[in-house]
């Protein structure tokens, strides 16, 4: 039996802006099991990063969780005090960000920054904490770690900085690692190094990973389970095979057709028409319907319910409801 470690139930997060309230995340639910890699994929403005930040409660000041629960080992962390959250962050759940250039403090040495995290969350202090920092750098494949701890972030390359970020996130052995576009700022060969590292660390330490990215390639490579998001809602969720080989939401289908693939090289790409969604001006029904070629009347009127597909994965698309009804009437 796989052990459930994190459950997100009907999460709603909104931001107050000058032009009104923006619902960035709308009723997102999912489960994460220990030792699994979950991918959240979507385009800019789909709410994938906000979902991750909501779990960590590191949203901007004008934003907040409006509704819903985030259960970590059965405890609702949205009810936590700031002091409890500080305990939770780092020790139970860590995050690494997209840009390794700006997420490290430029005026402190690498060792100093690693030591800070370790001293805050573990009983290790002083020299002991520094030894742990060196040990962590060795684990993430930084060469000459004794020398590196005395260096400043600007002395390291992008790939090395991202390794330092991973070392920092894993220093207190969290159960969950959230990676928000961890390789987007890196080159492909460096990206391959980092993904390989994350996979091997995940096997070694047995933590769960939430991988937030827009890159379908990275998702296919890394993840056991995938959530596809559009306009702050979950369109489809299932295993990697479900999503890539049996997509059941019009948006997922469109997304897969719009990336070049090796076996369709000579053919034209099939783009999704229209422009990305404006969260200030959300349609009444399905968020994707203004760009959907098969949109029906009901899509404009009502938000589609989540429905289980025959293979067991979930999709929220009226097309599936229609197909099911047609099948029933044929019988």
């Amino acid at each position, binding site marked *: 039996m796989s052990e459930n470690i994190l459950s997100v139930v009907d999460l709603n997060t909104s931001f107050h802006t000058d032009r009104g309230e923006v619902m960035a995340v709308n009723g997102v639910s999912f489960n994460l099991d220990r030792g699994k890699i979950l991918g959240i994929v979507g385009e800019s403005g789909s709410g994938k990063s906000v979902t991750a930040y909501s779990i960590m409660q590191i949203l901007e000041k004008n934003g907040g969780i409006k509704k819903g629960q985030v259960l970590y080992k059965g405890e609702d962390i949205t009810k936590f005090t700031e002091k409890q959250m500080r305990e939770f962050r780092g020790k139970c759940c860590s995050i690494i960000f997209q840009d390794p250039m700006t997420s490290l403090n430029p005026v402190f040495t690498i060792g100093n920054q690693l030591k800070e995290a370790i001293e805050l969350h573990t009983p290790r202090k002083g020299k002991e904490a520094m030894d742990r920092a060196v040990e962590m750098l060795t684990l993430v494949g930084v060469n000459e770690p004794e020398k590196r701890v005395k260096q400043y972030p600007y002395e390291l390359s992008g790939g090395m900085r991202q390794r330092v970020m991973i070392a920092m996130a894993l220093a207190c052995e969290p159960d969950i690692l959230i990676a928000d576009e961890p390789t987007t700022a890196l080159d492909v*060969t460096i990206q391959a190094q980092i993904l*390989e590292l994350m996979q091997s660390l995940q096997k070694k330490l047995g933590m769960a990973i939430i991988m937030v990215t*827009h890159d379908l390639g*990275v998702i296919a490579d890394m993840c056991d389970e995938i959530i596809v998001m559009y306009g702050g809602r979950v369109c489809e969720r299932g295993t*990697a095979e479900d999503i890539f080989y049996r997509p059941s939401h019009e948006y997922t289908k469109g997304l897969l057709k*719009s990336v070049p*693939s090796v076996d369709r090289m000579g053919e034209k*790409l099939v783009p999704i028409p229209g422009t990305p969604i404006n969260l200030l001006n959300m349609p009444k029904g399905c968020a994707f319907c203004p760009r959907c070629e098969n949109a029906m009347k009901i899509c404009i009127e009502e938000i589609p319910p989540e429905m289980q597909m025959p293979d067991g994965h979930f999709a929220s698309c009226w097309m599936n409801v229609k197909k099911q009804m047609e099948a029933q009437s044929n019988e």
Partner: protein
Amino acid sequence: MSEMKKKSEYLVEVNNLKQYFPIKTGFMKTTPLKAVDGVSFNIKAGETLGLVGESGCGKTTVGRSLLRLYTPTSGDVFFDGERVDKNSIGHMRKQMQMVFQDPYSSLNPRMTVEDIIGEPLDVHKLYSGKGERRDRILELMELVGLNAEHATRYAHEFSGGQRQRIGIARALATNPRFIVCDEAVSALDVSIQAQVINMFEELQEKLGVAYLFIAHDLLVVHHISDRIAVMYLGRIVEIADADDLNASPIHPYTQSLLSAVPYPDPKMAKERQRIILEGDVPSPLNMPKGCAFRTRCKYATERCAQECPTLTDRGNGHMVACFNK
């Protein structure tokens, strides 16, 4: 006077292009940063040449030196048989245009779409009256899929994909025969990226323009290009037909680059063997002697440290710069 060359089958010819930037490395001391160090290639009319490589390999500099946005340190560029130099570039910019990576910073926020697209027409005086200018602008906007009503709006009112369309319309305004696309789709979302890639292809079919398509996304480059050149630290290490390069890469760098591309297919991703390169790209200020790739190459020998390999033809125009492969 611009020196004339025999008409050749190529629209753009680049011979041994070098672009060095002086970098201050101490008091009164500068070291040349060899951003592009002897690059040669040709592009036929109506063809797309993809240029790939990691950040800092000099691919953007090649595009910019080609259009003399930088003054090249040495080397020749010929356009349609005519040498591109400081005297000829003025009228040649009509034929050679560029689309930039960032659709947010490459459009003037104080100008309307009409003025942005009209600016090249003004510079090259390509109209006789206001009406003709307006007609041409509307024609260009239609070509890239923008509505006529957008003409009086400002750039900030558009999404990333639409802004990139404005940038493309501006590049097309002078009826160029060659466009350098510098990471022109990298900043866009996947679904919008496909729209713009298709538009590039349709414009090529319609207008017969040639592209130098600079990008780091190998799948996109493979999709759009006829031929692909791979750069590493200022030099081209391999250049071949797009399908040929993908099916049978020869240079060890190309091999690892292709193996590192994450394919959007879980089965393929699990079966595929990634060739992980050790370490990082060396600093271009402190380039290894001989072959620049030898510090990360598992096939490196004595000879690689002594000499720099040159591009040699391995059949069918598949050119590789490597001693051991």
